[in-house]
């Protein structure tokens, strides 16, 4: 068997793939967090619960309505995004003039409530969700075996991230978003309905989390706490990338997934902490994050 730095290539590329998969989810989730933080100034601690709701929505659609994976990719984000719109209108909208801390408390509390309700209904053990038929099997690349579904997740998440980046950085709608992030009162005085834009942006960010949840359902088990485990790492990714930076959260998400994967190969003991060690170093050297602008 071939080896690189004393590690069998099979293991190396296997961990690299797992890193890329994790990175795909880090990127999509931190992207949603960055978009929400940029416009709403709220650190959305409910994000993990909303990711979990996306996975559960897919499970419900399949098991209660017979609707499969592909339609779930569309329906679950819309449905969960709609719950986000309701949360923003009824609760978050009252907090914008208050300290950050209130938004953090509300969204953190909401996450606990949602996760509690799901755990009460479904217990803590996971529900299985099968890989759609079109994506079963895989490719033998010679040096490793690449399951089709995993390849799909990586490609789909890159496409979703780049499309979101394009809309925000290169379109008129994105110009409104960027301008409103800087000075919402002035953008509104030009005739733009900024409160509605804020509501829809939150709905979009939540929908993005739910989309990640649907994509995660066949890989990880559908579990009430699946988001709680992930979100802590995702927040570290956001801090490393720079709060509110769109490209920063995408690039950092994928990079840290890979770093984590490689750490599992070369120094497994550190694989759970490596991201936080990087976070500490980045915070010391560049407090605004790798891609963040000092405000």
């Amino acid at each position: 068997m071939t080896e690189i730095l004393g590690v069998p290539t099979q293991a190396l590329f296997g961990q690299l793939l797992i890193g890329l998969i994790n990175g795909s989810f880090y990127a999509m989730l931190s992207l949603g967090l960055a978009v929400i933080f940029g416009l709403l100034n709220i650190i959305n601690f409910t994000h993990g619960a909303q990711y979990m709701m996306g996975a559960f929505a897919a499970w419900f659609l399949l098991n209660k309505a017979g609707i499969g994976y592909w339609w779930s990719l569309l329906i679950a984000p819309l449905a969960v995004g709609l719950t986000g719109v309701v949360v923003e209108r009824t609760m978050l909208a009252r907090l914008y003039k208050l300290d950050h801390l209130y938004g953090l408390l509300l969204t953190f509390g909401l996450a606990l409530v949602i996760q509690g309700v799901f755990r009460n209904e479904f217990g803590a053990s996971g529900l299985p969700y099968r890989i759609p038929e079109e994506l079963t099997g895989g490719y033998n690349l010679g040096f490793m075996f690449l399951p089709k579904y995993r390849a799909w997740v990586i490609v789909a998440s890159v496409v979703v991230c780049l499309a979101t980046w394009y809309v925000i950085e290169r379109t008129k709608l994105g110009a409104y978003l960027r301008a409103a992030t800087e000075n919402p009162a002035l953008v509104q005085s030009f005739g733009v309905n900024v409160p509605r834009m804020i509501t829809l942006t939150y709905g979009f960010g939540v929908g993005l989390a739910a989309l990640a949840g649907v994509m995660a359902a066949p890989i990880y088990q559908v579990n009430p706490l699946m988001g709680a485990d992930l979100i802590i790492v995702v927040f570290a990714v956001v801090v490393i990338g720079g709060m509110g930076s769109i490209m920063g959260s995408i690039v950092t998400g994928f990079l840290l997934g890979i770093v984590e994967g490689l750490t599992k190969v070369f120094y497994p003991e550190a694989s759970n902490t490596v991201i936080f060690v990087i976070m500490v170093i980045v915070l010391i050297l560049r407090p605004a994050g790798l891609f963040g602008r000092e405000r």
Partner: protein
Amino acid sequence: MPEGTRAAPAAGAPSAAAALLEVRGLNAWYGESHVLHGVDFEVRGGEVVTLLGRNGAGKTTTLKSIMGIVPRRAGAIVFEGRDTIALSSNRIARLGIAYCPEERGIFASLNVEENLLLPPQVRPGGLTVEQIFELFPNLRERLRSQGTKLSGGEQQMLAIGRILRTGARLLLLDEPTEGLAPVIVQQIGRTIQRLKAEGFTILLVEQNFRFASTVADRHYVMEHGRVVDMIPNAELGASMAKLHDYLGV
């Protein structure tokens, strides 16, 4: 801009006599602090009117109240016969009022072109981008630059230019000459005179009454959150002593 390229005044252009904007008993608050105490004045269609007064007299707050940016306000602000006091600022903008803030409000995350095209068109009859470039040729050269990389004067041109596209008929300009070199101040003055000739109505906040006297038809003097005097531009020379007293210059 040459005579031939002037935009036709928008349909239903203001008649000289009717008040386009009427402000009656306007009160406004920032949090607990009561800033405006019953402001009264009016602006007729096609006029250029200034609000003069010392720092803290309430000039900027008056503009922000008309635009709907000050959340707590009371009284009457009637634009084209419609009271806007209870409307949100995006709806007020859609009626045809546009605001250029004192700090200019150029967006750092947008380039010059994006800044220029940002405000949506609220009515037909605004200037075309080409006409704006004729007024401010510098902007054409710097379309791809980051908005806040422009010089102060260019940022001011961008801040005025972007609200000319929208078709708004009443422009609220807050100290457009503040901190600018004399040559730029002259350019802004010529621009305001041209806009007046195009049929725009302008409410201008100024500290510099010498500049104001070169562009305005009438001047309102504000003190302690009230309008205390109105001076037609023709009488400005005769009222100099009074004005010095008001402004403390």
